[in-house]
């Protein structure tokens, strides 16, 4: 711990971890009334490639920063699907094409789909929860030929016009995945299911003994789905869930993203259900 009395001549870029890189908005696609997929390309040195399930901290300059999952990887371009719910996410969704977004990351754990060869995989998403799962499904489809396991995708949304990535859903179905959608309430003409995503667990094929599940959505949904999967005989350790908490830094420095023993930006957002996580989700923090 010997320390010099004089500071080093010039500091290395001291704030790299906390300072965003500049990306340009090159494409915006409307997914629903309040949700947009934003395509960004690097202006500066590109950041390291994200893995499916990881997230970036996106800055709307002058407004603030939000944690947003990677929903598409077309290196060096990267897609994020953003639901405009507040100041930052509204500013991101409203940015004109050509505008500059600040990006930090990628942060956190990923879905580790490469470990799932041979498993029947059930992907279950609620609402915007499909965004962090989209690249995982794409990776699992690519596996389909050699992997041996079956792939099912179960999505839930408030209403049919709230479903994300309809074209992808069709494409995944054509590629052999079992795709089912359900909505909370349906207008006339909807031929899909109505009700909770758990009702569709019996409509997709998987052998609980060799199944893995990837789950993302509102926390109540995650809790109910994980419990239903365990009821059907899926091992809690084979269920991976992606959890959300307040995040101010993304890198284990700010303390906001704690869930009991976990710092979710570092130990999550993707964590195995089972053991401590199952208990933490049952306890609730209220």
């Amino acid at each position, binding site marked *: 711990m010997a*320390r010099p009395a004089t500071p080093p001549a010039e500091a290395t870029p001291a704030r790299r971890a906390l300072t965003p890189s500049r990306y340009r908005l090159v494409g915006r696609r409307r997914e629903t009334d309040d949700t947009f997929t934003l395509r960004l390309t690097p202006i500066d040195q590109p950041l390291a490639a994200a893995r499916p399930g990881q997230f970036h901290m996106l800055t709307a300059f*002058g407004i603030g920063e939000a944690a947003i999952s990677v929903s598409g990887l077309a290196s060096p371009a990267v897609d994020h699907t953003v639901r405009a719910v507040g100041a930052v996410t509204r500013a991101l969704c409203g940015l004109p094409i050509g505008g500059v977004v600040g990006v930090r990351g990628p942060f956190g754990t990923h879905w580790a789909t490469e470990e799932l060869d041979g498993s029947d995989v059930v992907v279950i998403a609620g609402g915007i929860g499909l965004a962090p799962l989209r690249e995982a499904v794409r990776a699992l489809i690519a596996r389909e030929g050699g992997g041996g396991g079956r792939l099912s995708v179960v999505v839930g949304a408030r209403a049919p016009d709230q479903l994300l990535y309809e074209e992808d859903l069709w494409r995944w179905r054509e590629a052999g995945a079992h795709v089912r959608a359900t909505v909370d309430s349906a207008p006339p003409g909807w031929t899909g299911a109505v009700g909770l995503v758990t009702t569709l667990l019996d409509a997709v094929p998987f052998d609980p003994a060799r199944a893995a599940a990837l789950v993302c959505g509102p926390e109540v949904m995650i809790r109910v789905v994980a419990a239903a999967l365990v009821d059907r005989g899926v091992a809690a350790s084979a269920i991976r869930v992606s959890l959300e908490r*307040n995040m101010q830094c993304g890198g284990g420095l700010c303390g906001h993203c704690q869930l009991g023993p976990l710092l979710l930006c570092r130990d999550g957002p993707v964590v195995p259900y089972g053991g401590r996580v199952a208990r933490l989700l049952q306890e609730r923090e*209220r």
Partner: protein
Amino acid sequence: MDVRPSRPPADDWAVLDPQGIDRLIGALGRRGYRTLGPVVRDGAITLAEIAGVADLPAGWRDAQDPGRYRLERTESPAFFAWAVGPHSAKAQVLPPRDRVWRASAGAGGVEIAEAGVDAPPTALVGIRPCDVAGLGVLDRVLGAAGAADPAYLRRRAQTFVVVAECGSPAATCFCTSMGTGPDARSGFDLALTELVDGGGHRFLSRSATGAGAALLRAVGGASATTIDRRSRDGVLGDAAARIRRRLDRDGLPALLERNLEHPRWDEVADRCLACGNCTMVCPTCFCTSVEDTTDLTGASQRERRWASCYEVGHSYIHGGPVRPSTRARYRQWLTHKLGTWHDQFGESGCVGCGRCVTWCPVGIDLCEEVDAIRRADGATAARPAPGGS
């Protein structure tokens, strides 16, 4: 518990008289250090710039109890006859407010300029062993390999530590339970033990780094005698024996983890004001929030500031806070500090300085809260089932 002070080899020791301490402070200044030490200000001993021993709080001691801090006069000429003030070393390595970057409209649309790190070489003179331990805890959180905050590392590398071992613990101190005091073990450049006895007013000094040794040589002291070293053993042994407050750490993380529904959380929530004082005075609470602002030129900047898990917004996600109740927030504080810190960083987040006990406006005492949970281990409060709220 072993209350014998740790004892480094004899040849590192020197004895300084009060003028020697004055020379030490002067030498730090001449070497370019901004020198901070204990100073009486606003009725408390705070950490502020010092120029010599005349600035030190000679003739003062502190009286501390849950929810109470008072300075009192003493006849002793000692500079360090008090325990701890409200300021830990934290603010020197993690400023309460700090600019991170500034962005302005430029050719590429937006130009980002990282804020420079304001990190003058800083000497902390007379901080306590528990605060040195606190810096070590922060090192494991903010300086962890691969995940370090560069600004923290920069400021930390610029910090020179002169620790004053404790001869006058307060009633709120429990460093003996946490293994952090009253003697200093590691993490300092120089350690001083103040002795006031038949041998006069003097400071047994030892260095732990090359920089510390060089400074001690430059200041020039007498060599230490066996009597001086025995006096130190006596002072620190007495101090350890006078620390009566205990935090029972036996199986503590597991105790807390299995008692998340204990009725004591409701009882403490009835008293807790959720003011966050305990987190502000804590030497290890590291939580921060960022805030972006714009000025009239259209430029924006991001600032990072201290945050506390007692703020409702600390756990805010779209739809509302995860911990809306005071019960949930007090529980987060206590279980993080004493329990889940072990999971996250491999040790306790508490160094036993007792500040949270002293500076709590209603005198909530974490040792007592732990004892209450332990006494009724496994008790549960009647609560609505999960999902029922």
